[in-house]
């Protein structure tokens, strides 16, 4: 059973919108508040009714809970998931419930999708509010949001089976969302590579050398091996964003597809543009007018280029080992592609993004724009420095990590299907997807339901006593006689399915104790 087929395909029932409560408050200007709507070919009246319902609910619930208004509406056939991305800017996702088509959702998983798309958007384009302030007509933000979210949702066929957390959602015209089958995954966390002390020291040594290449400027770095994080000097939020992006578009697996279809792409970017354009075209003529045609959007005399960082197959490896892309367009007056930039959440500083790849090792380096004086020229100097100073160390680190890596099933624990989340560090680890697929549907659905319960319990506890984290343990005997277990303790969560377990609860708790002692240094063994 392949993963892609396992994902639920949603067609008609799916809607996704972003709107601004501060806009369009006058009769006849309602359209103004819509910043994004999917599917875009829906009539405006329908769009407005969805948004109107959401807005009404938000306004109503705010009366009782001004801090956190509405989170979710469960209707008979639909679920509405709310997320306030920025003050008064809301993202709402509507999914259809249906027993036959596996459309069983966990709300928190869906909300995390909303969070992810928003924080990625902010990382590349800045906050929605700032774009709105920049151009009050909303033209700019709509074109950016449209391109960005469509790219985010768009298809990506060649997924490696061990890709754990980040998948794209659009298969052809259909969108697949994280369903109960993904209940042993946690979006918005990073997956770390476990390294020994010696390798860790080598990595740190490399990181320090890299950072010294930028001179005195504060420089950040992220080191990935395959799809796993090895080291970061960024704040947790920025780490998650960049890690997500890297796994989506930069990691060796993400680049593979390009290499395999090289000749096809080399023929001209037209092909891929046609592909992208067809996605746009499918969304109908309405969007053309409303969101502005991508190629002709008129922003005065300025360059009307909309940067689409999530476009597929746009990154490739340059001769010097650095990854290059033309997403950010050519540098003014030259043929060289401009260096990508991202905005850091923590420091709110715009940084140049340089990516170096050697075999399975990906190094992401961020230099503040303000510290590099001559733009592209300065960047190429830094790159040269890196190649000169750090090449040897990179070879060494890559070799060391490759030697220590156990392959895609490295973190498989026989007999267990688990998900381990460390909320303090935003790190998760799970059984490899290939192993998760061996679980029966019943087990997965019960775990999904159990997680739903835990999510609820967690958010309740958070409101009750934010300083005190509660311990929680639930063991369920599922219909198919599998043990489904959740245990949380002081910020750490462990979810587990034991299908071949023994009859007794004692056995189950014994198994969890063993697991805890061996793989979590005893964090979950309390009694």
């Amino acid at each position: 059973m392949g993963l892609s087929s396992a994902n639920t395909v949603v067609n008609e029932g799916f809607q996704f919108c972003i709107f601004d409560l501060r806009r369009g408050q006058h009769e006849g200007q309602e359209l103004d508040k819509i910043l994004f709507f999917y599917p875009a070919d829906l009539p405006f009246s329908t769009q407005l009714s969805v948004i109107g319902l959401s807005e009404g609910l938000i306004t109503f619930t705010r009366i009782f809970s001004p801090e956190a208004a509405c989170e979710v509406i469960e209707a008979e056939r639909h679920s509405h998931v709310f997320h306030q991305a920025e003050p008064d800017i809301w993202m709402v996702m509507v999914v259809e419930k249906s027993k036959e088509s596996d459309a069983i959702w966990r709300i928190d998983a869906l909300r995390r999708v909303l969070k992810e798309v928003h924080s990625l958007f902010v990382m590349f384009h800045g906050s929605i509010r700032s774009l709105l302030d920049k151009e009050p007509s909303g033209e700019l933000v709509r074109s950016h949001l449209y391109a960005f979210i469509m790219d985010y949702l768009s298809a990506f066929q060649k997924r490696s089976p061990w890709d754990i957390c980040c998948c794209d959602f659009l298969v052809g015209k259909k969108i697949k969302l994280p369903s109960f089958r993904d209940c042993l995954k946690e979006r918005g966390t990073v997956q770390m590579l476990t390294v020994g002390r010696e390798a860790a020291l080598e990595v740190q040594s490399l990181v320090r050398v890299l950072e010294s290449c930028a001179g005195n400027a504060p420089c950040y770095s992220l080191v990935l091996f395959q799809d796993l994080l090895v080291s970061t000097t960024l704040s947790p939020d920025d780490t998650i964003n960049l890690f997500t992006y890297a796994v989506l578009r930069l990691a060796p697996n993400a680049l593979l597809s390009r290499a395999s279809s090289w000749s096809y792409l080399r023929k001209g970017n037209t092909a891929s543009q046609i592909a992208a354009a067809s996605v746009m075209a499918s969304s109908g003529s309405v969007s053309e007018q409303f969101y502005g045609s991508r190629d002709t959007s008129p922003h005065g005399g300025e360059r009307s280029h909309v940067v689409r960082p999530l476009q597929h197959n746009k990154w490739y490896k340059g001769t010097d080992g650095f990854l290059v892309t033309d997403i950010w367009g050519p540098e003014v007056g030259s043929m060289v592609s401009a260096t990508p930039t991202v905005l850091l959440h923590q420091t709110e500083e715009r940084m140049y993004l340089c990516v170096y790849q050697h075999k399975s090792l990906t190094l992401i380096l961020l230099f503040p724009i303000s510290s590099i004086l001559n733009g592209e020229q300065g960047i190429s100097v830094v790159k040269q420095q890196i190649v000169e100073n750090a090449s040897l160390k990179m070879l060494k680190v890559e070799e060391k990590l490759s030697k220590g890596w156990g392959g895609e099933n490295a973190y498989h624990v026989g007999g267990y299907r688990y998900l381990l989340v460390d909320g303090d560090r935003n790190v998760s680890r799970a059984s490899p997807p290939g192993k998760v697929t061996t679980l029966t549907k019943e087990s997965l659905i019960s775990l999904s339901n159990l997680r739903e319960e835990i999510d609820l319990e967690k958010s309740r506890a958070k409101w009750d006593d934010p300083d005190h984290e509660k311990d929680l343990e639930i063991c369920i005997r599922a219909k198919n006689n599998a043990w489904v277990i959740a245990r949380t303790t002081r910020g750490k969560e462990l979810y587990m399915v034991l299908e071949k377990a023994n009859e007794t609860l004692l056995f189950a708790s014994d198994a969890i104790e063993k697991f805890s002692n061996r793989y979590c240094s005893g964090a979950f063994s309390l009694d």
Partner: protein
Amino acid sequence: MFGKASSSQLSVSLGGSGALSHVYIQHPPLRCSIPGSKGLFYDDGNKLILSPTSDQVFSWKTVPFASHVAPTSDSISEGPVLSIRYSLDSKLLAIQRSNHEIQFWNRETGETFSQRCRSETESILGFFWTDCPKCDIVFVKTSGMDLFSYDSETKSLHLVETKKMNVSWYVYTHESRLILLASGMQCKSFTGFQLSSAGMIRLPKFEMAMAKSEANNKPVLAAEDVHIITVYGRIYCLQVDRVAMLLHSYRFYRDAVVQQGSLPIYSDKIAISVVDNVLLVHQVDAKVVILYDIFADSRAPISAPLPLLLRGFPRASSSSSRTGNKDTDGSEANDRSDHETIIYGDNWIFLVPDLICDVAKRLLWKIHLDLEAISASSSEVPSVLEFLQRRKLEANKAKQLCLAIVRTVILERRPVSMVTRAIDVLVTSYSNSIKTGSYFKGIKAEKPPTSDVSNVNPPTSVVDESIRREDALGKSIKHGSASGVENESINRSPAFSVSDSEENVSFENSNHLRSLGAKADRENFKVAESSQSEVQKLSLQSQLLGPSNSPLNANYSENLESQVTSAAISPDEMYSCVFASVEEEMAGDPAYFVTIVIEFLRSANVERIKVHPNIYVLTVQLLARHERYAELGLFIINKILEPSKEVALQLLESGRQNIQTRKLGLDMLRQLSLHHDYVLLLVQDGYYLEALRYARKNKVTTVRPSLFLEAAFASTDPQHLAAVLRFFSDFIPGFKNTADHIAYCRILNEMNSSITA
């Protein structure tokens, strides 16, 4: 008198270290003038300067070197003295009276006897005492070598063996136990023997290279052109080629002699000294000295040629402040004429390995290296550190210099790559010193360093006071390197047995070390298991020609090395003398400092050296202070900062502002099985129920029940309080009778009644 002299010298030497010189001789010299002396002789077997008069022979010990050594004397009969040496056990005195006769004295009984050549055709070139098991004394004659053993009962010499060959002249040094016999027209064919306590080894015959000036003019090699030197336990022969103006070097192996390359010379007259394994080539005519450290294969000099400096000479020192200096009168004024020393004068004779004898004025000088000046002269920090780490004589000074250099490069924020190499040098050197055991000997001589070794006082201990003497400076205490006769004879035996391989030596040492390590009570160092392979690797490195050509050992040097304090710097000292002090002075961005610490940890990890937890604590403090919690977390999770109680407590402390960091500290306590602390902290944080469960599971009974009860009471949840009360009533016998139980039962009742009410 000495007190005054030393105080004036102290100031001079401090000022003088800045002078343009890397090598100096220290005033005052050892004065060997005895009225009626017939000349000075150097007995290198016993390290004595001998001065015979008509009926007495005076001797001064040169090791340890001091200017005030009083001579001892033996009476002898009158007669010519060509050469004179004490036997190695100092019981016999041998005097060469003529080309055919050597006379012997028994110092205890005063008896004498003579040994003559058998035929008149041969003549004695010289003789030396040896510790070779088969003989006691060797006569070198024009017809070859005669090996004799001394029979103490018959009080006579027995001929053990004769090696027949034509000998033009010979060179012998006791420190190498090597004799080279020259023969042939040009005297450039050599036969060598090593007569060590391991037995006699015959070296293959070899020829020295000599350039020809003209077609028919063949230069003849003279004895003074050939020098045997011993550096780092290896034996080399240096040969002056006057035509080519080169100094050829040869290294001796057990079964081969290999030319090692040549050094240029700039003077017709060349003298060689070895100070602390540094080769000094005195360019006598040019009055400069060039230093070489031939540890590595590099033949580049350490620094530019510079003159030899005379330190502490009253006239010289007062030249700058002559007007106000009234100290240089009195006793010193009397022998001022005596002191008019001409550097590289014609009367200078260079003695093996590091002495200069002024024959005319009967003065003996010892050559010293000026480590400060040498280290200041190069900007190539790693190589300077390597050089300093190899120094044994002034190990403490070298060590302090190393620490100062590292501190400076870090404070100056030099490029990371360079600091990394510098740190690598120190760590590798420390690791080697642990493997060879010299570090522990050093520790033993000092004292077991405590965790805060910030004291840099010169170590004093009773253990080997006998071989230590305050040198004239009085400011540093130095170990005597080759400390007298008795000491040497002890050291000799194990190392001498070796010539076949260095491995044995290393094994000896590491075995020795095992017991020492235990004694020194330093369980951190995992030396004991210094595996065979490691040791072999070491010895392989030093063998240039592979196992078949194991190097000839200069026998005792290995053991001597371990006698003195090593310049190696332990991680503890790195922490207290470098990191802790540097961190205080470095303000601002911690990135650079953290980088250096990481490099240090990496280097230590490669060498499998345990690092002091304080370094980890310091890193935690630093990262937390600059709110780099993400990196800190990564370091802890990856165990870059190894878990220990100190680190855990620091994490808890730094985690006051950051709950995640605090949790890391708690987790670390749990993983270290520090149950008591863990439970206590859980209770403090309000997790009293979890704490109870944990306490029960791990049988922690040391935390007072009242703490749990207070915490439960503070939560204002009567159920919890009841649960905690019940727990203690059930699991602690006799708890029901304690005041705590009674008090909290009452409180619980009040709480319940207030709820129901």
